[in-house]
């Protein structure tokens, strides 16, 4: 049973789906016609699931250049009577927020759901920002599912709520919902007519009149005041169990609460919030009266806790509130069953019954090595950074004299040994802006910004315009691996065909860069170390903005398309076992096997970078990847 078959399974069937696949199913069930997003963990699989099915289900499902554009596409459609979806990772909200906040004043004519996937942990995200505050800031209703089944089911509710309130809905998930795989029962498809109409209504859509803006703000508050009632009509928010000891929770934390209550065989009332903005105060007051004490179990910020304390104070409730501090629930990192278990021991005043992990103290002889994530064998970024570092050294600088700004993508793995190349990884596109700041502040040695293809389109372009316009001396290396590799190889604007199978017009980075006024533009092959070194050396000290595009398809992607090269072999008669090849590349496919270098053939991609750093010319090449050009698909 393929993913497509599982996602499109007949209503009522029980299938195994990942949270994001379940959301995609919910989106299809809801008859959404336009879906857009920008890849970002843990949100990517929603559009990845929808895109290949989009023709079949009659939907537009494509990636956009960034989250703001993605949201605007969805908003434009929903303003015009078409159900739509936008997806993004947590910091994606920051990028899209300019449009999202205004959208609360505009509203929608048909359902619009914004999936924002937060990442407590964090597992893969630069910050642990808690986007529940984003809903409050934007004044948009927010729904939080707790598990994969709810992630599927509540999509439909979200569209109904969106249409009743005429507002976009924030569908806030976390990694443990997006990336959990679970058995789910899939639901019925709704099938209702949708027709495009574009409304001329200046007061609603033009934010240039301040009196209109005030009126729309009042309208928004009016809509929000109805949200709780409509949500309860959709059976959102619920109460389970019994007793004067209560637990307030939402999202995935609910699952930890439930399991631990069962494990400890305790009776308590669980107040499970699902509409978490606007604050469902009426529901709470209706259900909280029997509570004598209440424990708040939530990840990251004390969002529920602060709102609960306000409610308690406003209504002078006699309630013992246990929040983050009292229960020892951390503000940092994700929750897990063990943390909640320990909080329960405190709250319920119990002695630990958990299995004594005595084996832990027994087992401490072996020192486990760390396993930082490496660049893949044949990763083109390896060649780019090896060449860049070499060129810096050859130009007479020490390694830590020339700051290399990093950006968001696989190439940030160059932070690890042996390259230890980048100095920053801050926010999408920030490499160029930060480099500008350093130069403008007066740093007199060269500064290099390194940025990926998609990251450049996403948020690097405005900073490059700034650099050109202000005539700052700066080398920008655009690492074009012909996909958005880190999040699962999504298409970029350079593609000629998208995941949904549509032919599109490719936008080439070199054309964009030249169009911005950059005169020095070179394209190099990162598998050709000499070429990279020569180009960087040439560009490093030239005045003004220089752009080097290092272009070579992501090895993993190429491999999946059946492209790889014959591994080089080491001529034992020439090899001195100096290990330069192993140490310089840090490639997982060439290792120190008891003092001798060994190419692990089944892992080797055949990029020949290791061969290019051997001082003794000991490699026999069996293939030449430089002859072949990998193209955009």
């Amino acid at each position, binding site marked *: *049973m*393929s993913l497509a078959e599982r996602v499109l399974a007949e209503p009522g069937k*029980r*299938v*195994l789906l990942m949270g994001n696949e379940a959301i995609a199913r919910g989106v299809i069930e809801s008859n959404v016609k336009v879906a857009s997003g920008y890849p970002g963990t843990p949100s990517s699989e929603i559009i990845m699931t929808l895109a290949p099915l989009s023709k079949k289900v009659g939907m537009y499902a494509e990636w956009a250049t960034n989250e703001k554009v993605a949201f605007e596409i969805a908003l434009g459609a929903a303003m015009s009577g078409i159900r739509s979806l936008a997806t993004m990772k947590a910091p994606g909200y920051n990028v899209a927020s300019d449009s999202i906040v205004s959208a609360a004043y505009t509203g929608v004519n048909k359902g619009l759901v914004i999936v924002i996937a937060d990442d407590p942990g964090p*597992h*893969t995200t630069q910050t642990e920002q808690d986007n529940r505050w984003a809903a409050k800031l934007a004044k948009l209703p927010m729904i939080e599912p707790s*598990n994969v089944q709810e992630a599927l089911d509540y999509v439909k509710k979200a569209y109904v709520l969106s249409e009743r309130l005429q507002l976009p809905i924030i569908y806030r998930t976390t990694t*443990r919902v997006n*990336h*959990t*795989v*679970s*058995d789910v029962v899939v639901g019925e498809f709704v099938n209702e007519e949708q027709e495009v109409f574009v409304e001329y209504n200046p007061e609603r859509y033009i934010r240039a009149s301040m009196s209109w803006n005030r009126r729309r703000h009042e309208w928004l508050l009016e809509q929000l005041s109805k949200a709780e009632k409509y949500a309860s009509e959709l059976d959102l928010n619920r109460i389970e169990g019994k007793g004067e000891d209560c637990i307030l929770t939402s999202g*995935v934390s609910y*699952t*930890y609460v*439930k*399991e631990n209550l*069962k494990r400890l065989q305790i009776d308590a009332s669980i107040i499970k919030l699902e509409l978490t903005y606007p604050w469902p105060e009426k529901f709470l007051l209706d259900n909280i009266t029997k509570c004598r004490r209440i424990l708040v179990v939530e990840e990251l910020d004390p969002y529920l806790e602060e709102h609960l304390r306000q409610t308690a104070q406003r209504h002078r409730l006699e309630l013992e509130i246990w929040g983050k501090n009292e229960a020892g629930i951390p503000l940092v990192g994700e929750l*897990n*069953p*063990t943390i909640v*278990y320990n909080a329960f021991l405190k709250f319920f005043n119990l002695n630990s019954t*958990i*299995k004594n*992990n005595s*084996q*832990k103290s*027994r*087992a401490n*002889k*072996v*020192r*486990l*090595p*760390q*396993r*930082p*994530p*490496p*660049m*893949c*064998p044949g990763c083109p970024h390896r060649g780019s950074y090896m060449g860049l570092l070499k060129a810096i050294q050859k130009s007479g600088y020490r390694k830590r004299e020339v700051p290399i700004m990093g950006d968001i993508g*696989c190439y*940030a*793995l160059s932070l*690890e*040994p*042996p390259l230890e190349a980048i100095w920053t990884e801050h926010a999408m596109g920030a490499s160029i802006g930060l480099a500008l700041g350093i130069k403008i502040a007066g740093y007199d040695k060269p500064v290099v910004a390194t940025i990926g293809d998609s990251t450049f389109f996403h948020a690097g372009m405005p900073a490059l315009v700034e650099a050109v316009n202000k005539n700052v001396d700066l080398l920008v290396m655009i690492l074009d691996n012909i996909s958005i*590799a*880190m999040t699962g190889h999504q298409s970029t604007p350079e593609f000629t065909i998208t995941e949904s199978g549509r032919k599109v017009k490719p936008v080439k980075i070199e054309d964009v860069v030249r169009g911005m006024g950059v005169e020095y533009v070179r394209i190099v092959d990162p598998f050709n170390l000499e070429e990279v070194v020569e180009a960087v050396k040439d560009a490093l000290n030239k005045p003004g903005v220089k752009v080097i595009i290092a272009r070579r398809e992501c090895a*993993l992607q190429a491999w999946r398309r059946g492209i790889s090269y014959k591994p080089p072999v080491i001529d034992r008669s020439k090899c001195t076992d100096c*290990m330069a090849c*192993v*140490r310089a590349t*840090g490639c*997982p496919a060439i*290792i*120190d096997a008891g003092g001798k270098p060994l190419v692990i053939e089944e892992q080797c991609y055949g990029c020949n970078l290791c061969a290019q750093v051997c001082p003794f010319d000991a490699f026999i090449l069996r293939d030449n990847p430089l002859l072949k050009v990998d193209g955009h698909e």
Partner: protein
Amino acid sequence: MNEYNIVIASVGGQGGLTLSRIIGQAALLKGYHVRIGETLGMSQRGGIVQSYVRIGDTVESPIVGEGEANAILGLEPVEALRAAKRYANDDTLIIVNTEPIHTITTIAGREKYPPLLDILDELRTISRNMIALNATEYAKNKGLPYSTNVVVLAVFASKTSIIEPEYYIEGIKTFVRRLTKENIELFNNVLRNVNKIITMFSQ
């Protein structure tokens, strides 16, 4: 069955996630509820990958609590030990593939990859219920170098009775999209000769 918790410890690219889904699908067909959680590093290959597979009549959360694993399937020795230290208890069934995968810190010479025998000793200290075999070598011998996960699955299937083998085969059919037939054959082969294979490939 109330609940059964499996932790799969692997390195990105070894098929740990596929293994979790095969077991998940098998459990679903058997009629259990399933929750699979995973902890991924940032890289697609070569980083630590831990998946939790929780099955039973009433499972809710996607994470296994500390010391709560019924079984640990280690596709790589260091990762098996890392997971065992956190999730194993005295009764945990540990199945470990003995083929090491170096880390970039051990390649770069900053840290040592610990001797295999020490790792196995320590796993044995954690739980007596420990099975070690070079599943990678066995899979390679059978012409399926990327099927370490299927070999480990078959050992697990033969040492436990929570799910019948035919369900695992259905799981393989659903989630192993390449060389499906060959992998099913590999699975059956291990199942038939499990003790012999464990002895022959014990290092």
